[in-house]
């Protein structure tokens, strides 16, 4: 930890109507893990894109290993020794690991040689990976390894990681951290973007905090509490969601041995899933992405059908009903993918309010639509959930991810559901908005709604759910009260090692 690998001086980047970064300066030292913290829209991704050559700064300079550094494109950045692991993987499901790695290379060597190098790197850094496996069969954690190895093959001096742990189990996170420590011991610097404050406190040597495009602080995360970090990001005092004591009512939603085939070839079919949620209860369902979460949401929303008696709401079989009928009886859902699934990107917020609200909000009469009321409904969501947008006439895709998330969750919450199922309710949402969404879910439960939260954020599930279960390869673990669980046990449940057999006797 001596010389700075990357030094940033006064970087500024403005887009029409918004300043993404304003006069940001900091140094990343050799062999350190440097956290970049900030809310959504704080300018983290713009900053990283400038370092990786995807975006050109308006002002300011960068120095990389003592030399002026102004990459015109990612290729130049890679040549200089900067590598990046993106949050969304760019891998082809149908190709194997080595072929995927070769695709990203300028001059790929023969596949056999490349496979040898992949093995070598994966063993050196404790990332076991078979170069000839088909990517479509890999777990999210393994896919991430492919991306990391792809970067390591370039021998980088600076590795940028964008939210790398959002798709990992706690055990996989440990493996990743060991790898990162091994890298830093060799002098590689790591720029680490994450929302998970505890993680940053455990891993990172230094943290730079951005708010509204400006650097607000640089600190040592180990000496700062998670709450202090969060408050620096948000700039205000945070509220922790409150759980009032709730009396549980009758069973509102019940699944009995539900099996549903996934419509996609690389999806995960659901296998004999059973659980019951009572009125006023929050059931948390964890699990690594791609273990049946999307399918479970689809099977509950009515996009995927099952035998009628496999899904019951208040005792009535609904498994064969479509989404509209299910909304009619009060079973509402909010899918994970905001753009294209929960909302139509090019349609206005008013139209998107109509998308699920037409029936329960009385926006439709005998098939004819009342756009005035739909606009009113959209405005009500915007006001109550603090959605930042010029108005309900704006297209859904013009909103930032976090704001759109508030809108699509708010849209369901405001329809007074009997049963609400949400998948990744706070994914990519900043700390204060996430707290608001969680509070809204808890308030609903307090009002007697049965809430099912599917999430990969374990802290979130521990915070709001009464009982916890994990999805693994389309099967559900035994469901246990959250208060009895620690993070170790949860990790084992997510990995499918614990109680799985018991659950299916």
């Amino acid at each position: 930890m001596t010389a700075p690998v990357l030094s940033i001086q006064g970087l500024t980047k403005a887009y029409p109507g918004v300043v993404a970064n304003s006069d940001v300066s900091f140094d990343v030292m050799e062999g350190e893990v440097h956290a970049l913290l900030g809310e959504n829209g704080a300018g983290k991704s713009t900053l990283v894109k400038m370092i990786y050559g995807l975006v050109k700064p308006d002002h300011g300079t960068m120095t990389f290993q003592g030399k002026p550094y102004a990459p015109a494109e990612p290729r130049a950045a890679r040549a200089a020794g900067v590598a990046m692991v993106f949050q969304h993987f760019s891998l082809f499901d149908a190709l194997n690991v080595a072929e995927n790695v070769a695709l990203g290379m300028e001059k790929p060597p023969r596949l056999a040689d490349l496979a040898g190098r992949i093995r070598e790197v994966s063993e050196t850094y404790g990332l076991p990976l078979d170069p000839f496996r088909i990517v479509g069969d890999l777990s999210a954690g393994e896919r991430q390894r492919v991306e990391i190895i792809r970067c390591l093959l370039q021998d980088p001096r600076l590795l940028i990681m964008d939210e790398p742990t959002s798709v990992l189990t706690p055990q996989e996170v440990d493996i990743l951290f060991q790898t990162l420590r091994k890298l830093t011991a060799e002098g590689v610097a790591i720029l680490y973007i994450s929302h998970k404050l505890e993680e940053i406190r455990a891993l990172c040597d230094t943290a730079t905090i951005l708010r509204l495009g400006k650097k607000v602080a640089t600190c040592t995360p180990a000496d700062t509490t998670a709450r202090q970090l969060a408050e620096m990001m948000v700039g205000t005092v945070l509220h922790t969601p409150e759980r009032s004591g709730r009396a549980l009512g009758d069973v509102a939603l019940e699944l009995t041995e539900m099996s549903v085939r996934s419509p996609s070839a690389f999806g995960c079919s659901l296998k004999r899933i059973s659980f019951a949620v009572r009125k006023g209860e929050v059931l948390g369902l964890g699990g690594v992405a791609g273990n049946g979460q999307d399918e479970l949401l689809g099977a509950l929303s009515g996009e995927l059908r099952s035998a009628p008696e496999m899904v019951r709401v208040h005792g009535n079989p609904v498994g064969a009903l479509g989404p509209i009928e299910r909304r009619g009886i009060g079973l509402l859902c909010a899918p994970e993918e905001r753009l294209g699934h929960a909302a139509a990107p090019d349609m206005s917020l008013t139209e998107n309010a109509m998308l699920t609200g037409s029936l329960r909000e009385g926006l439709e009469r005998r098939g004819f639509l009342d756009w005035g009321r739909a606009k009113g409904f959209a405005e009500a969501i915007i006001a109550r959930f603090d959605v930042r947008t010029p108005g309900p006439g704006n297209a859904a895709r013009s909103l930032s991810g976090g704001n759109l998330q508030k809108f699509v969750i708010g849209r369901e919450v405001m329809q007074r559901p009997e049963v609400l199922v949400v998948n990744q309710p706070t994914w990519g949402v900043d700390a204060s908005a996430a707290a608001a969404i969680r509070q809204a879910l808890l308030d609903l439960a307090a009002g007697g709604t049965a809430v099912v939260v599917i999430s990969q954020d374990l802290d979130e599930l521990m915070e709001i759910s009464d009982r916890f279960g994990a999805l693994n390869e389309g099967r559900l673990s035994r469901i246990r009260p959250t208060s009895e669980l620690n993070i170790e046990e949860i990790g084992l449940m997510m990995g499918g090692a614990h109680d799985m057999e018991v659950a299916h006797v």
Partner: protein
Amino acid sequence: MLKLERRPQPSKAWVWLAPVVAVIATMIAGGALFAMLGKDPLVAIRTIFWDPLFSEFAFFYRPQLLVKGAPLILIAIGLSLGFRAGIWNIGAEGQYIVGALTGAGVGLAFYPLEGWFVFPLMVMAGALGGWAWAMIPAVLKVKFGTNEILVSLMLVYVAEQLLASMSLGLMKNPEGFGFPGSRNLQQYPSAHNAELIAGSGMHWGVVAAMIAVIFAYIMLTRHILGFHIRLTGEAPRAARFAGVNPGRLVLICLGLAGALAGLAGMFEVSGPAGRVSIDFNVGYGFTAIIVAFLGRLHPLGIALAGLLMALTYIGGEIAQSRLGVPAAAIQMFQGMLLFFLLAVDVMTNYRLRLTRREVA
């Protein structure tokens, strides 16, 4: 350096400006084309766009605008509903032919009986015929996942063979001295789709087109079905989440398009054309695709685009006879219109930015 930059939301101004720019670009490029053919470009453009409306003989051409525009609008309205939902019916020409055959077939079956009910029955038969022809690709798509573009297109050629067979066989005029083609329905008052106001070009097909425009407008803006059609086109997954049944939507959209195309064929065969003949169809079903896109898949836009396209048909005929421009040049002219429109359309979602060349 010019660079395309994605707009945060689609530009409302360009949605309406694009067709205008496309028409102007077509005039310029078309003018160049005519100049290369050795014609005075200004005269050619004036002959096509101005003379049918304002020349000395305009009284003769103006009714033609409605006669030619109505089937285009009727078909394009039906097509636009499917296109909005991402359902690509390319076979309106076939549905148009079959609608004409079933409509005319009912009329001919009643000949020479006079009765008020003959024409309404023909209307129903025409719509039903077009609907049934469109149901073939629709059902195949829903049941077996076939591609509706290929199936509907191939059925056009089947329909053309059917048309030839009918005009040479079953529907041939028994008093026609062996010439191919059916009896002339214009001479059978109960079945004649006559002008409602003499000399205006206004026949029942024009009325149907107007109703279709209004109906489609209300459906798309005010009705849940229209909302679901738009939603399916914009975000199919969100549409399923909202509760749209994609198979049902395919049946509805193709069915409506087929019925409207069938109606257009029926009004044409019982009115302006008068009889079933081998060369009865003149490509309205294909031109309507251009009309639908030129009109931004919007009912009112389609009404205007249909009239514009009718104008190029009429003007094209005048140019052929008066200036000796080949018929193919007119078709190219219409094709150019679609080409330019699709090119200019980029501006709806992107904007041009002048950027300084960056130093690498």
